């Protein structure tokens, strides 16, 4: 093969690699299993992706702002356990705002550490992953949390309800995606998130309050996590302490798949939604072709590596390089 064509292929793979891979996956799955493209399967994939998707929306803000959030999975467990516990103690009408308040407090704490104290976000949120898990276990005493009377509560509407035939989790995901898309793409705050992530020093030199912007990205992330926790709790009306375990990586995979750069400054809410769906369909497809559920952990890792690699390859214009 001539150097020119090889370069052309490399360039195409580097630019549209994710899409190319996605199309290949879809074709293979559709041939392997007829059920893959059935309406109920597609709606099932979207529905089961909703919780992950809602969390990915918030992490999109954090990543575009130039930081990471690895605490979302653990934080989602916290929200779920807290709202289930308070449901029986305070009743759903008070439990939901109380849970949101507590989760936002956790987000604000991370926001202060990363935004105002300028601590490395990887370390802070990795630490919080563990710390929040401890908090959750302390809250629950290590036991599973269940709602006492599962038939009598209206609380199940967020996870199990339908409105005009559309599952509520999908509705929440869509509405939140729409709203946050407007915030990121059309408001001064959104513009500042891009500026801070694109070049924090230049943003400071332009009078953008960098610390405050970073703080709010974590608050938005926490809000999304609380929403995800609400859906999760409402869907199952009972939960283990580890319900969100490992989701931080899947969320990150979805955000990167969507094309947000880990260096910050690029990405959109819409692209993240696409990333969430790609991840959902790939996982579902692998199940349908008979891959064991546990293999998904490995698949998620492969997808992250692939996405990060292609992101870097697109930037340097070559798939690999021996020099930095």
């Amino acid at each position, binding site marked *: 093969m001539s150097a020119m064509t090889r370069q052309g292929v490399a360039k195409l793979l580097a630019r549209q690699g994710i899409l190319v891979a996605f199309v290949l996956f879809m074709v293979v799955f559709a041939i392997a299993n007829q059920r893959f493209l059935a309406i109920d399967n597609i709606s099932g994939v979207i529905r089961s992706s909703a919780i992950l998707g809602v969390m990915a929306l918030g992490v999109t803000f954090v990543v575009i702002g130039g930081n990471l959030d690895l605490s979302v999975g653990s934080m989602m467990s916290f929200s779920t356990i807290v709202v289930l516990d308070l449901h029986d103690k305070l009743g759903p009408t008070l439990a939901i705002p109380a849970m949101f308040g507590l989760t936002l407090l956790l987000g604000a704490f991370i926001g202060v550490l990363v935004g105002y104290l300028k601590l490395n976000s990887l370390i802070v949120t990795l630490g919080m992953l563990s710390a929040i898990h401890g908090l959750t276990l302390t809250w629950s005493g290590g036991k599973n949390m269940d709602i006492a009377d599962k038939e009598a509560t209206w609380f199940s509407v967020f996870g199990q309800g339908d409105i005009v035939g559309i599952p509520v989790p999908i509705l929440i995901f869509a509405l939140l995606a729409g709203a946050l898309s407007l915030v990121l793409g059309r408001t001064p705050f959104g*513009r500042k998130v891009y500026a801070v992530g694109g070049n924090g020093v*230049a943003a400071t*030199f332009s009078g953008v309050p960098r610390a405050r912007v970073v703080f709010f990205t974590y608050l938005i992330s926490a809000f999304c996590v609380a929403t995800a926790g609400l859906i999760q709790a409402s869907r199952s009306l009972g939960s283990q302490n580890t319900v969100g375990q490992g989701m931080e990586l899947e969320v990150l995979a979805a955000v990167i798949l969507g094309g947000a750069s880990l260096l910050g400054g690029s990405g959109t809410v819409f692209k993240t939604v696409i990333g969430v769906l790609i991840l959902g369909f790939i996982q579902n497809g692998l199940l349908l072709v008979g891959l064991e559920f546990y293999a998904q952990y490995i698949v998620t890792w492969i997808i992250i590596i692939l996405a990060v690699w292609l992101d870097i390859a697109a930037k340097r214009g070559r798939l690999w390089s021996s020099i930095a």
Partner: protein
Amino acid sequence: MNNDIPILRLEGIVKTFPGVRALDGVSFNVLPGEVHALMGENGAGKSTLMKVLGGIHQPDEGRILIAEEPVVMTSPIQAKAKGVVFIHQELSLADELSVAENIFLGELPRKTFGRVDWTRLYAETDAILKTLNVGFNARTRVGDLSIANQQMVEIARALTVDPRAVIFDEPTASLTDAEKVVLFDVIADLKTRGVGIIYISHRMEEIFKITDRISVLRDGEYRGTLVTAETDEDKVTQAMIGRSLDLTRSPLQHEMGDIALEVRGLECGALYQDVSFSVRKGEVVGFYGLVGAGRTEIAETIFGLRAPSAGKILINGQEVRIGSPIEAIRLGISLVPEDRKGQGLVLGMNCRDNMTLPQVDDMTAGPFLANGAEVAIFDQYRDKLDIRTPGWRQQVGNLSGGNQQKIVIGKWLSMHPEVLIVDEPTRGIDVGSKSEIHNLIRELAAQGYAVIVISSEMPEVLHVSDRIVAMHNGRITREFTSDEVTEDSLIQAISGIASDKVA
């Protein structure tokens, strides 16, 4: 060694970059056992010449001869192998490693199975250190050494080969007087060993103390070689800046208004002390000095990026406290920073978004950004500043340096500031755009802005300023009006030579 055969000879070196003739026929030679000074203003071509000598750039024309043998060097490693070694101004040492490891980095002596031969490493290092007469040994951690001693490590690194020519680039920039004495001893020792030395420095007193001959570059051209013992500072200065210099002030003359910005006794730790000056509306005040003289730090203090340790800042006669860039912007202060790509622009964002960034909070209709208002501002300043871009959607990173700088200037003009601080406005910008930006600065002053221009380029400062503040080592050494300033007196003021020496 025969003193008549030059150890290093350059013949008609030409190096061009797109749009710039950085070196235009440079020829000179260095004799064994000679200290040869290379002088010239910032941008005269010294560093390009050194990169050619070091194998980083290839000359377009001309030859390099070592002991009259033509050589081609395509990498710093090759240059070193041929005996041409550099002592860089900026130290490139690994703090956490020992002196020995730093000196032999990349070429550590080995035993079988790739194990490092520590005994030999330390022995060889100590042998080199002994010739330098230093107070530390091979096992000392580099991070624990003073800057001067770290420089000695750099020199020791150069001595691992048998050097024929050693090039010192501003070696005394961060040394105390006592440390300089040690450095000069080392240079004297290298001399007696017959090594040819190129010594680059702005400091006249050093040049006259230790060098044998002086070669001068100006605008990439070789302006001749002087024998140090037969010349004086004035002659060297004259060769450096020449008479062809365009000293005529821009024809735009205009009335000045009240004092817009006044600074009294401002101090920021060790960075600068006792700085007082004022800028009137319609006036351009130039700040001239060597890199590290404290000029940028003053600008950053006024813009709220540094907290002063003493002194006052007054805007329109009112004392103000400026705790952040946000407050500075609110007070009508704008800063076009020194590092355009690092501090001035978000390269991945488009032209319009960069330009409206400081006022993005006011660009709204309801909760959302008003697209029309933003584009209107961009269009206005694109036309006003003649910014050449295919459209506002263009990523700023794709524009030329001159157009990028205009985006930064447009960003601040659209805020209608009272005080505009411009730090190194034409760094890395081609000649044509340079004069455009100079004219723009004069026009802005004519429109009533109070402008501060910080520059390391003398022609630039002389051309645009109504008044020039000279700085040396964190202090203002002298203030000149544009009528009284001369190149000699300005050079002396920034070198820290007492101003009463000026005729």
